[in-house]
């Protein structure tokens, strides 16, 4: 069920209504029921996988918590890790591993004539998100940071809660579980703020992301005949597209959860205004990057802290390769991860030097240039991200520099894209730098606020793409 479909809003309206009408003690159970229904709506068979993951981890989590023996804790932990990783690897990376294994056989001149056991499996909904969340949960129990959840229904809801199934965020036990213990009562703030969040999400997705997607896919599919300037524009716009797409969908997810009285983790913090790549990763897909930070980077960096900077570099490399392949089973994603690692290693190594430079130059200029350079880096990284092969990515960059021809941009679509991006970025700039004291959407008068949000919806009607765009982060 797409977040931008009419049926989703009917589902949401109906669910919220029933949710607040039924007695508070049944609300969590109700959420479990509709989450399962939501899951089944997409595909019936997927429910068995998530239930399997829930059962195993619920049980092992309690076992780890109960036992005092360090040995046993480790054993249960590794058992859970094995189960979770196997599910993830099987559904997501099997074909990729088989393909590369057979290619390796070929290189080593081993017999690879047998037909490769490829499987035709689709990725279960939200797999990458909930597996990571569960691994985090089990690790937290093992470290002693949290207590295992003994209420089976609560743990089920923690894993399967539908707003975070499609695009995350990857929640944490200490952030989300306590909320499930609270008694939710009707608070109009939740409904209003939730609805507003959803409105922004719809704007970003329908007006900005889906509109750019039309132009971008046209340019890229005919890139041989497009001028370098056109290709560059398409790639720059693609950065805005991915941001609008992912953060817009996340807004709808968070807004939905808010309507039910829950605060899910923020996943974006105006990432296009980051001044360097490290900062970018603290503002982009925050639930993933902080997960990797807590469960991969920190342990490795602390373990190898006596290697000095090399320990950091190693930890960064592993962390970003993980972030890369989390996105998918392809070498482009690995390369994407490595490119981020290189950028971060560079930044770590040159930290002092860059700080010196920043002290010498006017801070506005330094910051503006930093934001621009970071944006360019992100744009080029996304070229790798969007291409099917690494070769394709480099070809595209090559075409960007050598292709000659007319600049391809019809005024109408250009105006739609630019207006959309402007509205989105002005909002972000205002949130970040507080340039104006006057505010439309947070105005003191609630009437002004109402008109502002009405105009937002009106603009979505005027400029949104209603023929169904493709959401990029689904296939994770």
């Amino acid at each position, binding site marked *: 069920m797409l977040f931008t479909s009419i049926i989703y809003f009917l589902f949401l309206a109906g669910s919220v209504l029933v949710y607040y009408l039924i007695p508070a003690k049944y609300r969590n159970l109700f959420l479990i029921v509709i989450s399962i229904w939501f899951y089944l709506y997409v595909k019936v068979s997927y429910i068995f996988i998530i239930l399997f993951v829930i059962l195993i981890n619920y049980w092992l989590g309690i076992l780890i918590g109960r036992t005092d023996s360090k040995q046993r804790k480790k054993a249960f932990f590794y058992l859970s890790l094995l189960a979770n990783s196997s599910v993830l690897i099987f559904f997501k990376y099997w074909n990729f591993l088989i393909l590369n294994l057979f290619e390796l056989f070929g290189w080593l001149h081993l017999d690879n004539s047998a037909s490769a056991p490829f499987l035709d499996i689709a990725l279960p909904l939200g797999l990458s998100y909930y597996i990571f969340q569960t691994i985090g949960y089990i690790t937290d129990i093992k*470290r*002693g940071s949290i207590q295992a959840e003994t209420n089976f229904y609560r743990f089920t809801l923690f894993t399967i809660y539908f707003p975070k199934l499609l695009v995350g965020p990857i929640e944490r036990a200490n952030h989300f579980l306590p909320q499930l213990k609270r008694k939710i009562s009707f608070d109009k703030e939740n409904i209003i703020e939730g609805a507003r969040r959803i409105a922004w999400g719809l704007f970003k997705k329908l007006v900005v992301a889906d509109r750019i997607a039309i132009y971008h896919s046209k340019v890229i599919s005919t890139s041989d005949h497009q001028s370098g300037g056109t290709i560059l524009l398409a790639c720059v716009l693609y950065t805005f597209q991915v941001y609008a797409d992912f953060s817009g969908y996340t807004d709808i997810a968070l807004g939905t959860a808010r309507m039910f009285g829950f605060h899910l983790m923020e996943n974006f913090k105006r990432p296009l205004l980051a001044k360097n790549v490290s900062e970018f990763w*603290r503002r982009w897909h925050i639930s993933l990057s902080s997960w990797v930070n807590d469960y991969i980077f*920190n342990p490795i960096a*602390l*373990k190898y*802290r*006596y290697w000095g900077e090399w*320990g950091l570099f190693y930890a960064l490399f592993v962390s970003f390769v993980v972030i890369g392949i989390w996105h998918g089973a392809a070498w482009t994603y690995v390369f994407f991860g490595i490119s981020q690692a290189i950028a971060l290693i560079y930044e770590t190594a040159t930290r002092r030097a860059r*700080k010196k430079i920043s002290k010498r130059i006017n801070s506005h200029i330094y910051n503006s240039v930093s934001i621009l350079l970071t944006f360019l880096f992100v744009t080029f990284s996304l070229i790798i991200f969007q291409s099917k092969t690494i070769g394709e990515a480099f070809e595209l960059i090559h075409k960007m520099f050598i292709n000659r021809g007319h600049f391809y941009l019809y005024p109408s679509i250009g105006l739609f894209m630019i207006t959309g991006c402007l509205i989105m970025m002005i909002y972000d700039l205002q949130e970040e730098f507080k340039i104006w004291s006057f505010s439309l959407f947070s105005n003191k008068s609630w009437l002004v606020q109402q008109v502002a949000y009405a105009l937002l919806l009106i603009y979505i009607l005027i400029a949104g793409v209603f023929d169904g765009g493709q959401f990029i982060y689904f296939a994770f």
Partner: protein
Amino acid sequence: MMNTFIMEQDTLLKELNNIFIKVFEDDSIKLNENTTIADIEAWDSLNHIQMITAVEKHYKIRFNLNELLNFRNVGDLCRSIQAK
């Protein structure tokens, strides 16, 4: 006994403050029991490692991995140091 303990805590915080200022290159740092990584702009997951090694060097101690992963704020850090 209580008084020496509290004094130790104060000096400990002062010493840590100096280490933090040195490692993070920020003179404005003022630590308290509840300070976390989110409270100080200059403190991030990268120089966190440097800070840990600097603390270990200063007090001639070694933290184990489990302790390190469970530090939530400066207070936790203090208690861990005192325990050594």
